[in-house]
């Protein structure tokens, strides 16, 4: 019997999570108090900055607390910093949009913060049950956020679909965890790793079934084919800033967990590599093929996010230090330019009545040359065009695959990334080349939006020209991971 005392609980390990939670609570309590309701944005902002600062402070330490439930290592910290930064950018890019649609409420901030906290919980542990809890803390606010525009039928539908599919996947995940627990008597990955030989010998069926169901549960979150079909509908219907958040935050969290579980916990199961091989190929190919004919930019970006998940799944098939750091690199890079792309889409949608269909784009290059240049830059980054960071992300990823002798996977991956150019080019073509019939409604920039665009543009180009800092970061992040 464990003797529970305060000694085992080191709250500094979960300080960033606490910071976000406290900020969310303050927002909930003050949000509807007259005179204080305008402070929500500021509180959320401060909470996130504090969260980032506390996370950075944890960098380099290697500690475990709460009786093995919380593990603080560089890998988790890197992701925590990433999540909080993503949320910060989403906060900045979305406020104006939410206000223009009349759905800017204090809950929006609180839900974002709580969801971010859930992601942090996911990244900060090696225990499957805690991962499940983190996943739910992340997902439940996301269901609400997807349907946040209550009057909009699309948003309703988006929330409903996300909720049903999400809880459906959660059930599979929980079942998987139950099987793993049954097979190994624990849910703590480190203990599973220690006994993996014994478990394989004695409880193979339970273990394999459990592993599969866990793969399904998290594969759903990162939109791996065939668990991807919710993505386009949910992305398209949700309010655009929320979609921006969906496309990078939960995806990164899902991958953080997948990397941990499958390249650390179940690294002993060699055949998983071939499973991920197939998943990666399916995911990137189907994502790209489906993106081809889209007529809505948000939907196109949704399919593109599926394809990008496919590229990152390559790292899971490959395994090893190079691949993991490449995956971390790719996730950061993807977050930067995908948020940038969504920032432009959000900005364009701030104009009333716009749903970011392709037909709305022509004339952009004439009316807003800088904005369309920025949009083109992000499209090039998404398609992996040098010297943007998108190219380097793919470069490291596929280089790691080649190194580990996954030649065919690389060939398919590179071919896919080249074919993907075709549809990204359509966005550029629509904004630059297609003739515009209507006069272009003006776009107003908010200072926050300019900050976001500036950061993402600098990130996309700067990290492309000087990727060594980020690569170094990614390498250090997986220090002591294996």
């Amino acid at each position, binding site marked *: 019997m464990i003797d*529970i005392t*305060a000694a085992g609980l080191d709250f500094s390990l979960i300080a960033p999570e606490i910071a976000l939670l406290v900020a969310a*609570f303050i927002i*909930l*309590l003050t*949000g*509807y*108090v007259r005179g204080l309701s305008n402070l929500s944005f500021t509180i959320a902002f401060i909470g996130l900055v504090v969260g980032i600062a506390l996370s950075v402070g944890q960098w380099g330490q290697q500690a475990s607390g709460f009786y093995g439930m919380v593990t603080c290592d560089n890998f988790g910290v890197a992701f925590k910093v990433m999540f909080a930064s993503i949320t910060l950018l989403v906060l900045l890019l979305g406020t104006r949009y939410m206000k223009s649609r009349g759905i800017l409420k204090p809950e929006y901030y609180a839900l974002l913060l709580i969801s971010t906290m859930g992601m942090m919980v996911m990244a900060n542990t090696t225990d499957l049950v805690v991962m499940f809890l983190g996943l739910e803390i992340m997902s439940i606010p996301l269901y609400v956020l997807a349907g946040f525009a209550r009057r909009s039928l699309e948003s309703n539908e988006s929330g409903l679909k996300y909720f049903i599919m999400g809880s459906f996947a959660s059930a599979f995940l929980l079942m998987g965890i139950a099987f793993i627990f049954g097979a190994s008597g624990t849910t703590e990955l480190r203990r599973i790793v220690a006994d993996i030989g014994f478990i394989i010998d004695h409880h193979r069926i339970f273990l394999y079934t459990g592993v599969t169901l866990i793969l399904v549960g998290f594969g759903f979150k990162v939109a791996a084919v065939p668990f991807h079909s919710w993505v386009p509908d949910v992305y398209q219907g949700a309010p655009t800033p929320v979609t921006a958040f969906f496309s990078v935050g939960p995806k990164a969290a899902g991958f953080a967990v997948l990397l941990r579980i499958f390249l650390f916990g179940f690294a002993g199961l060699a055949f998983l590599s071939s499973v991920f091989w197939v998943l990666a190929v399916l995911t990137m190919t189907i994502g790209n093929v489906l993106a081809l004919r889209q007529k809505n930019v948000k939907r196109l970006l949704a399919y593109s996010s599926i394809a990008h998940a496919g590229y990152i799944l390559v790292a899971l098939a490959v395994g090893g230090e190079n691949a993991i750091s490449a995956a971390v690199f790719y996730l950061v890079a993807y977050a930067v330019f995908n948020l940038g792309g969504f920032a432009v889409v959000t900005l364009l949608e701030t104009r009333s009545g716009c749903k970011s269909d392709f037909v709305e784009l022509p004339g952009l290059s004439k009316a807003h040359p800088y904005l369309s240049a920025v949009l083109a830059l992000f499209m090039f980054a998404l398609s992996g065009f040098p010297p943007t960071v998108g190219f380097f992300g793919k470069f490291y990823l596929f280089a790691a695959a080649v190194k580990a002798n996954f030649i065919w996977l690389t060939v398919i991956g590179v071919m896919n990334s080249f074919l993907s150019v075709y549809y990204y080019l359509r966005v550029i073509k629509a904004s630059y080349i297609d003739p515009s019939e209507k006069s272009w409604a003006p776009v107003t920039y908010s200072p926050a939006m300019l900050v976001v665009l500036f950061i993402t543009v600098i990130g996309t180009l700067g990290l492309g020209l000087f990727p060594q800092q980020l690569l170094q970061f990614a390498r250090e992040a997986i220090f002591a991971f294996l």
Partner: protein
Amino acid sequence: MFETFFPILLLVVFATLLAILLVTFSILFGRRTKLGKKGESYECGIDPVGSTKDPVPVKFYLIAILFIIFDLEVVFLYPWAVISRKLGLFGFIEMLVFVVILLVGYFYILSRGALKWD
């Protein structure tokens, strides 16, 4: 195995038989009357008003949803209560934190006016 469950089997068989028997008897020997009153929802005399499929005010759903949450959170109080003495002051503070978290939710609900009936 069989011996363990035999009484249960017996019970199941007996119950089933009894049920079938009673229903059969009632069909065979019962008197059938086709009075209008028999077809009504409430034989005791109150006439039903309107359709049963009328929408219920949203407030009911809201209360129900809130109830689910607060009701289930109590589940954590039980294990704590069992060993609360053993956990001592530390356990008490921990549980206070938990309750405060719930209270935040409660105050939020209050501030949204979700519990006001009008």
